[in-house]
């Protein structure tokens, strides 16, 4: 990988953010809503990418972090009547705490065992959400009422159900996380993470405490995913156990693989691409899962580096 000049990298990403901002004014209603949703889910994918792409830890249980944020925010609004910022923070806190506990346990294993353990913890989490259906709404889920999704800042009131406000909130979250992950992976700490991925034993021998570095990565990744979940609950007003299912652990993996693991923009590209592919194909077939399955197999067979990964390899070596 050639050394990236910081100015070039940051201007590319600020350009993407500016483009998304500009799109808000020209997109037709349907796509406007879709892009807002994609940006929130791209945050989920970015959180996943931090762990999978940079540290090389393949988790099959990230749905639990997303769902922790989703339920943490959704339930505190629904049952406790908390305000939007408090609920958002509550969601993030739930995800961070869960990630810390899961990280301490799951990082005792590695490789295949790590994947299975994370999948099992996520399964337990999802079953718990079904078991406590009295509070979580179980399969049916809960709809957070419009009245509860109003943000009061100083004197101004922002209604999160308004499409423009929703789009801009999603964009704000997306931009913060994009720039933050970019800063993290370009920092000294980010380089240690890549070193762990490339050769953990050697990194350990060079004097780095790989366990606490990996644990920190799990917590940061889980927190980002929880932020995405919390935003989803507050912006789209639905909290349901389907978001905790195995499928939602597989989807971020698919998005990241498609977009390109260990690239900053890959998660967005992957989520965008996959969402539009399913959106277009759902017009003439209901076999949505078939497409996901075929995409996964073709990706691992022919494009293990994903879209942005291939672009970086062929043309733009400086791409972060």
């Amino acid at each position, binding site marked *: 990988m050639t050394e990236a000049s910081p100015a070039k990298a940051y201007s590319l990403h600020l350009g993407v953010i500016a483009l998304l901002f500009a799109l808000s004014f020209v997109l037709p209603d349907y796509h406007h809503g879709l892009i807002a949703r994609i940006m929130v889910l791209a945050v989920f994918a970015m959180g996943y990418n931090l762990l999978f792409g940079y540290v090389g830890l*393949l988790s*099959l249980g990230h749905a639990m972090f997303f769902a922790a944020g989703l339920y943490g925010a959704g339930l505190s609004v629904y049952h406790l009547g908390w305000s939007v910022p408090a609920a958002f923070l509550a969601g993030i806190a739930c995800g961070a705490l869960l990630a810390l506990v899961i990280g301490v*346990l*799951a990082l*005792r*294993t590695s*490789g*295949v*065992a790590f*994947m*299975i*353990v994370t999948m*099992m*913890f996520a*399964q*337990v989490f999802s*079953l*718990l959400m*079904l*078991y406590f259906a009295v509070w979580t709404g179980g399969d049916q889920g809960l709809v957070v009422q419009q009245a509860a999704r109003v943000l009061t800042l100083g004197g101004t009131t922002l209604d999160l159900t308004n499409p423009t406000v929703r789009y801009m909130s999603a964009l704000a979250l997306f931009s913060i996380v994009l720039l933050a992950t970019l800063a993290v992976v370009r920092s000294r700490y980010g380089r240690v993470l890549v070193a762990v991925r490339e050769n953990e034993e050697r990194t350990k021998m060079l004097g780095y405490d790989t366990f606490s570095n990996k644990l920190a990565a799990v917590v940061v990744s889980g927190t980002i995913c929880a932020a995405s979940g919390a935003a989803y609950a507050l912006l789209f007003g639905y909290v349901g156990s389907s978001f905790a299912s195995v499928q939602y652990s*597989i989807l971020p*993996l698919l998005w990241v*693989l498609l977009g390109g693991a260990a690239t900053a923009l890959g998660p967005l590209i992957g989520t965008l691409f996959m969402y539009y592919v399913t959106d277009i194909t759902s017009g003439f077939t209901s*076999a*949505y*899962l*078939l497409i*996901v*399955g*075929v*995409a*996964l*197999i073709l*990706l*691992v*067979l022919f494009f*293990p580096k994903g879209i942005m990964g291939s672009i970086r390899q062929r043309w733009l070596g400086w791409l972060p």
Partner: protein
Amino acid sequence: MHFGPHLLLAALEGLVTSAVLALTALGLSLVFGVMRVVNVAHGEFFMLGAVLAWALSTAISGHPALGFVAALVIAPLIVGAVALVAERMVLRRLNYNPEATIVATIGMLYIIQQLALTFYGPEARPVEPPFSYRILLPWFGYSGYKLSVVAASALLLVATWLVLTRTKVGLLMRATQYDSETAQAFGIPVDRVYGGVFALGAMLAAIAAVLIVPISQAHYLMGQDPLLLSFIVVIIGGLGSLRGTLVAAVLIGLSDGIISMFFSPTLAKIIATLVVAMVLVFRPQGLFGTASR
């Protein structure tokens, strides 16, 4: 019913679960043991077996036993062929890289599930048992078919064990499992062993499904639970240990039957999954396995 007979009934139900689970988990364990591939699509091969059993038994008229026997022979063969094709076309090209194969088998899971939904539909459909003899116990009558499932499964497990320990094919498989590179150097066709083992693993799942389908109906989502339970059994039993797999299957099946009878099935699943995750975290070689090399 009093507590005693109730417990007996729960234990019998648990034993049937154990029998089917042991076969399914054995398939998963063989594939992991020999090929080091975590086959996430294993549950879908199970489902495919059940769906094919329904298709075959409805296609063949006459006595239900006729259709059942046909299903017991043909369904595993079809499933084995599907698995072989998948192995040749996808897994072999990935060089059995552990992470890539997990992603690929997740893809297979979705493809098989969606195809089953498209062509078979979302309904759960029953298959008639080959015979309906009820064994009368002093407290309740119990289905003779269910007990014959236990017997059939035990027979198949013994047969697999004999193949693994007493035949040339079994020797080739064990040699590949122990050290595939050395096996290759000694002229063992490792590549073909891999193909065969993957097909065999899928066939074991399909047989288990054909056996269980007269008791629980065929449904396109029925592969999820066997997959999770098989993982649990394989992990607790220790990977590649046939004896461990059997003991763990009986343990899990019985406790699942008994806990589900007295508590909520969801709670039973939560406890079992959590216990297994903890086993994997604190004792990765399983309860019966030896530490890996």
